[in-house]
């Protein structure tokens, strides 16, 4: 029963990916991309990672696809040349490259023999793995993976705060840097009626002149009690 569902989801996903790559209209491409993201979420459900499927829907469909939509709307081509069409001379080499890559990957997957001299589970060939380790009622319910799958959200939180805490902090730092970088990149250095500059002026961060060295702090950097009051 699960195999036909997988085949159906995979076919839909690959068709959506092809539609993303080949469709002329960029908005249609973005919608195909949403469909592809959703099939990926379905694959996560088939792999019993439902928490990851929820994250996939929230982050990819909810945020990334919408950002891409905004990007499409903000960059309409004003020179009149057609960049969404695929040049005919480029289709063949690109298709050849992707087919070659798929051939190499498929050859490697189907001919994988496993590592030599390792434990029995590590040395297993991929093509011989046709059954996932069971977590159902007929399996041993005490395996850590079964417990983790049953309480995926809790396990993710625990692991995030213990084993992967460094990665978690680095990811937070990277997201902060990405936000600052995106704002700086998209900042328009031009007219004074720019909304971003107005906001910066309103909070007293514009013009961004550094204080000269060796002087007392200005009243703007005074005690925190007066920082919230409006200055006349």
């Amino acid at each position, binding site marked *: 029963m*699960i*195999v036909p569902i*997988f085949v159906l989801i995979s076919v839909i*996903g*690959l068709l959506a*990916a092809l539609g*993303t*790559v080949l469709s002329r209209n*960029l908005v249609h*491409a973005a919608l195909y*991309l949403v469909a*592809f*993201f959703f099939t*990926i979420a379905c*694959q996560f459900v088939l*792999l*019993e*990672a439902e*928490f*990851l499927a929820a*994250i996939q829907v929230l982050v*990819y469909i909810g*945020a*990334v696809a919408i*950002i891409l939509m905004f*990007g499409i709307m*903000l*960059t309409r081509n*004003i*020179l009149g*040349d057609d*960049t*969404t069409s*695929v*040049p005919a001379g*480029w289709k063949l080499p*690109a*298709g050849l490259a*992707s087919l070659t*890559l*798929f051939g190499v*990957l*498929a050859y490697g*997957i189907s001919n994988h023999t496993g590592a030599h001299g390792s434990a029995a589970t*590590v040395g297993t060939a*991929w*093509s011989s793995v046709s*059954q996932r380790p069971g977590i159902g009622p007929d399996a041993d319910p005490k395996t850590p*993976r079964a417990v983790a799958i049953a309480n995926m959200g809790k396990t*993710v939180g625990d*692991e995030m705060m213990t084993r992967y805490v460094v990665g978690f902090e680095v*990811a937070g730092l*990277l*997201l902060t*840097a*990405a*936000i600052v970088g*995106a704002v700086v*990149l*998209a900042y328009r250095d031009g007219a004074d009626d720019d909304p971003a500059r107005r906001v910066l002026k309103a909070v007293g961060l514009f013009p961004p002149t550094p204080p000269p060295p060796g002087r007392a702090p200005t009243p703007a950097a005074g005690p925190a009690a007066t920082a919230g009051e409006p200055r006349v």
Partner: protein
Amino acid sequence: MTQDIPLTWFLYFASASFAIGLMGVLVRRNPIAVLMAIEIMLNAANINLVAFWRYGTPPPGEGPITGVMLAIFVITIAAAEVAVGIGLILLCYRRWHASDVDRYDTMSG
């Protein structure tokens, strides 16, 4: 027990998605379309991570959900990448008045 999905099927699906994404990166001229194709490739990699986690045997002392955590980090990086990428694309669009990667050739020698 009913028949389960073999591990290699997930790997084939992921590699096919990755190949399609590579074709999109090579064939497209619009930078946003290139970004979409990169997202396809990242998702294909995520499928691989989760499939190996579910079908494989975790090494001792590595925790029960290694593949899922790795996939979560990949999703985080992908979201940051899209934010910065859209900023760059908007900057290039403002500068060259075109959304065409063939025109962004100022740094080509």
